[in-house]
């Protein structure tokens, strides 16, 4: 990642308040993600990682605050403006969320069919190239149910990249995978980040993945209802003033958090 890229925010979360049924889960959350970086949202179970991600991609409406994606607020965008914001992002869900009635090629083709005027042959080629990027081009004709969990996640990344969005949001990309497959996904993320300069926003609590892929992390805590640490994960592990942050990174038994 170049210095120029690193200094330019592409996603900004400003004063976000989020929760369910009147219960506030995240209070006044502020951070930004720089263009081209691999940004990880981490924290313990139930701290609101996935909730934050779903607010960032416009699935949930926040109680207050803004989520600025490349200059446009996804919270207030409606109609054509919202569709335009959504073309800037791609999302990979925890389960992959591939459409079970379609082949891999058809899954990746779907956004191209809906958003572009390309010929069928051109869409096929483009979809195959996306699958090639994630190492699945030889499985174009397979149904998702015929693939392993790791392959499904890679295919979901290919589908998320179909329209060449600048930002990819990944929800628990390594969850439920064996260590080798998990490492393969990590390597894929690093490769795509370096070669295509895609910005990644990743929710995970897999420590090995965090060390392997992240440029920067924020750490959420459910008692603080927000961010309790931000920065390089290795630096946080070694130098954080917050004992709970250090314990988290060292995978030690929980102690009472010290909110900042």
């Amino acid at each position, binding site marked *: 990642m170049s210095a120029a890229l690193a200094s330019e925010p592409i996603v900004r979360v400003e004063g976000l308040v989020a929760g369910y049924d009147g219960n506030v889960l995240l209070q006044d959350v502020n951070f930004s993600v720089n263009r081209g970086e691999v940004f990880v949202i981490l924290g313990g179970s139930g701290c609101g990682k996935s909730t934050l991600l779903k607010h960032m991609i416009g699935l949930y409406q926040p109680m207050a605050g803004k989520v600025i994606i490349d200059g446009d607020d996804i919270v207030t965008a409606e109609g054509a403006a919202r569709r335009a914001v959504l*073309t800037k992002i791609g999302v990979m869900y925890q389960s992959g969320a591939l*459409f079970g009635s379609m*082949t891999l090629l058809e899954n990746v083709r779907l956004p191209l069919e809906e958003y572009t005027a390309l010929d069928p042959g051109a869409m096929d080629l483009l979809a195959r190239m996306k699958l090639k990027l994630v190492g699945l081009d030889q*499985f174009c*004709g397979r149904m998702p149910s015929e693939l392993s969990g790791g392959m499904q996640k890679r295919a979901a990344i290919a589908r998320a990249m179909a*329209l*060449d*969005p600048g930002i990819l949001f990944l929800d628990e990309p390594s969850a439920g995978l064996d260590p080798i497959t998990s490492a393969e996904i990590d390597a894929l993320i690093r490769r795509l980040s370096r070669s*295509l300069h*895609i910005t990644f926003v990743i929710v995970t609590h897999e420590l090995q993945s965090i060390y392997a892929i992240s440029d920067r992390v924020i750490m959420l805590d459910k008692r603080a209802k927000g961010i309790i640490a931000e920065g390089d994960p290795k630096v946080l592990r070694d130098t954080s003033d917050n004992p709970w942050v250090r314990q988290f990174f060292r995978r030690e038994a929980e102690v009472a958090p010290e909110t900042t």
Partner: protein
Amino acid sequence: MTSAVSEAKERPAAQLALEDAADRGLVLRLSGRLDAYSIAGVWREARAAAAGAPNRPIVIDATAVDYCDGGGVAMLVDLLRQPRPADAAIAIRGLKREFQTLLDQFDPHAFAAPPAPPAPQTNTVEEIGRASAQVLRDVRTQVAFIGETSGALWYAFTHPRRVRWKDVWYECEQVGANALPIVTLISFLLGVILAFQAAVPMRQFGAEIFVADLVGLAIIRELGGLMTAILLAGRSGAAFAAEIGTMKVNEELNALTTMGLDPVRFLVVTRIVAAILMVPLLSLYANLVGVLAGGITMLSFNIPLVTYLKEVDSIVDLKDLIAGMVKTPVFAVLIAGIGCLRGLQTETGASGVGISATRAVVSGIVLLVAVDGIFAVIYYILDV
């Protein structure tokens, strides 16, 4: 490959200009922005130009391309992968370094072949064999299910304290109380339609009063119970299949099994008992509403309600009511049993639960009508 849309507003769309080169070659001069949103027309033109010059060397001049993402790279790969003679090859020049890096990730000749075809289709004989085996498996499953359910119901009958009555009452509410509005509406309309359709021709003979006989007998002996059962097959049978199917997909059934709890006793018995309790009550209620609806309709044909009800009372006796009601517990077992069976047979995948719900409704209704026919024959033989 960074944010496409906002930049698209500021930069020129993809453009293509064709020029003849000095050495009998052809130059495709690309300019502007090459992305999936704006490239469709240029892609077609470029392919047509290349196809129209099969023996001329082609140079793609990309000097004026100021943005190129996966879409643009795909177009270049598409042009490069076309088979051409060696002296009429396609070359790219002037592509900016960052775009060339993207292009270099792909070997155009790796995409020369069409995409891998889907899994080979099986032949007709194999299909018939598979379908037959599936039918046999289905029959075996149904027989096993009937056996298991009968055993579980007998156990529940002999050990009523072991029945999960809290679940039974919950299902009674779902199957019975919550179905009242739809049963009321359909029974009322059934009574109105029957009475009206019969009254119009009968009036020609001055026989409107016999509409009461027709409506009373048809609804109490036959239609009240059958229509209620068909409604519940669509409503509760599908719900049972979907609930149990979702539990199976979520491995909740496996959890029950590994806890040593029998899914049939836990899930099926409660639903069947609830249906056995509720379907006769709903059928009785449907009879009442249907007959009253017929009476209300006959008011418009100047037949007073009292006269109508006296006529119904004269033609319908207790034997008819019993003949109608005896069928309803059997219908209840069919509706709940089929719904639960289809739920237990649910396969994985997003469509699995939907398929189970559909099968529960279709096979439930078919079985209901078939069993109703068998009852009709039995009643005829027994002269009931």
